[in-house]
């Protein structure tokens, strides 16, 4: 395992698409959430999926990791069709993927160390002392040294996210998925998580897919960005291009302009305050 660890220190940046999504359609009950989505994520690239609440971005992420079944379309991960795989093949692939959930999803009945050790204990023949070293290493990487024996409930929100990232890193994944890594955190802690993601990207050249609605962190970490709106991709471009985009939905999202129906003709709140709304342009 140390040989493996050494190899990971200076890997050659991989090339080719790590994830290919073609004409993906996902339903939630009767309602179609994602309509005909297609995009590619290159190996080693950090793809940020932006979108408002209800845009389908979390559903997209859940479908990519196999938690939701698409009703149409294909997902190819590392050149293999995810939907056409047997359960065993899918499990093999999942061991190469890490996922950090929005709330951390740490197992509440286990310590932080046991959480990180779990995939190693279950999927590798490593002995306990090696696993202990691995756990310490992973917790070091996310800045949580010495927290092995804490229970998840004893950690703050930001530390939970870090512990969840350490667990996602446990199996040295090739693709890492993040669901809202900085949601619900104060700006300083959120910036710390962004920093961590950038560091991981530089150190390991992992392919990352990050779902977020936080613009600042999105522009900081992204190599490429997708803007989802009501289940459709309205933009797919590098951050710099997206920033310059003239497309109305993109501008509305980036400039934080509210939906027109929320500021109706008679705005009672405005009548009460007697002020004009702030100029958002």
């Amino acid at each position, binding site marked *: 395992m140390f040989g493996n660890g050494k190899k990971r220190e200076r890997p050659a940046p991989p090339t080719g698409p790590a994830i290919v999504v073609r004409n993906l359609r996902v339903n939630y009950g009767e309602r179609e959430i994602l309509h005909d989505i297609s995009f590619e994520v290159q190996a080693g690239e950090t793809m940020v999926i932006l979108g408002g609440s209800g845009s389908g971005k979390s559903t997209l992420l*859940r479908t990519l*990791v*196999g*938690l939701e079944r698409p009703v149409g379309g294909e997902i190819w991960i590392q050149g293999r069709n995810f939907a056409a795989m047997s359960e065993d093949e*899918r*499990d*093999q692939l*999942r*061991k190469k*993927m*890490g*996922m950090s*959930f*929005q*709330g951390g*999803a*740490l*197992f*509440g*009945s286990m310590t932080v160390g046991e959480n990180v050790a*779990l*995939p190693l204990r*279950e*999927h590798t023949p490593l002995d306990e002392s090696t696993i202990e070293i691995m756990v310490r290493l992973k917790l070091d990487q996310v800045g949580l040294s010495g927290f092995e024996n804490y229970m998840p409930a004893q950690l703050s929100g930001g530390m939970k996210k870090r512990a969840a990232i350490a667990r996602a890193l446990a*199996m040295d994944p090739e693709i890492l*998925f993040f669901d809202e890594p900085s949601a619900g955190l104060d700006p300083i802690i959120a910036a710390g998580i962004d920093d961590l993601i950038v560091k991981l990207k530089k150190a390991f050249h992992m392919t990352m897919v990050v779902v977020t609605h936080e613009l600042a962190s999105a522009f900081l970490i992204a190599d490429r960005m997708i803007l989802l709106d009501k289940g459709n991709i309205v933009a797919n471009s590098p951050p710099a291009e997206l920033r310059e985009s003239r497309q109305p939905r993109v501008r509305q999202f980036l400039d934080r302009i509210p939906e027109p129906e929320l500021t109706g003709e008679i705005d009672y709140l405005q009548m009460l305050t007697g002020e004009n709304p702030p100029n958002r342009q």
Partner: protein
Amino acid sequence: MAFTQAVGEGTINGLAYVGGLARLTGGAARAVFIEPFRGRRLRLSRAVHQAMGVGVAALPIISLISFFVGTILALQGAYELRRLGAMQLVASAVAISMTRELGPLMTAIVVIGRSGSAFAAEIGTMKVNEEIDALETMALEPIHFLVAPKFLAMILMMPCLTTWSDFMGVCGGGFFGVTNAGFTWNTYFHATLNALVLRDIITGLIKSVMFGLVITAVGCQEGFATGLGSEEVGRSTTAAVVKSIFLVIAVDLVFTAIFYFTAPR
């Protein structure tokens, strides 16, 4: 029309529910009895942990309840037997009712309240916190990881608890017999042993294993069916208790009937 539709829907939902239970039980049985021979590890330490919770920790309350139930049985039996002047039959009445019926049933009721509800709450909370999703993304099958250890703990612990419950029930009956019916402890246990045949105890233990399967399956299924939000966990826990009690009684009826009709005459 609406009535027939409601009956049809109810039937379909009921069958689907039982189908779900069977699927869970089948998956857990495969994980416990077949997968270990194919090189997949059985999570024995988790099963032992569960067995402590399900079994050992339940001993005090089961002892107390069974003792009381045994005494109640003796009192109720004596009420009628006294008039016939057959007080010596109290021992066999208690022994047969405890081993064949009330030992397994009272154990099941206590285990539902302690463990069935806990299974639903544990898995429900994990569902709400996305921990079940996390297991799946780590290529850990929730049935293997969560249900199988509970299943194993339950099928091992239910017969043990039931045997203990039988014994405590007999002691409860003996308490009445010794104080009010002219037995000594020695003659009471002797009368009990004479009244029982092995079949009485074994049918009770078979029932207890079936009850264990039902309690595990319902508790876990309700946990997995938990929706979003923490109030849903409370709903699942309640549903697990109510449905387990109903299904345990239904299974009890079926097995009691089977044992009755297959009994040698």
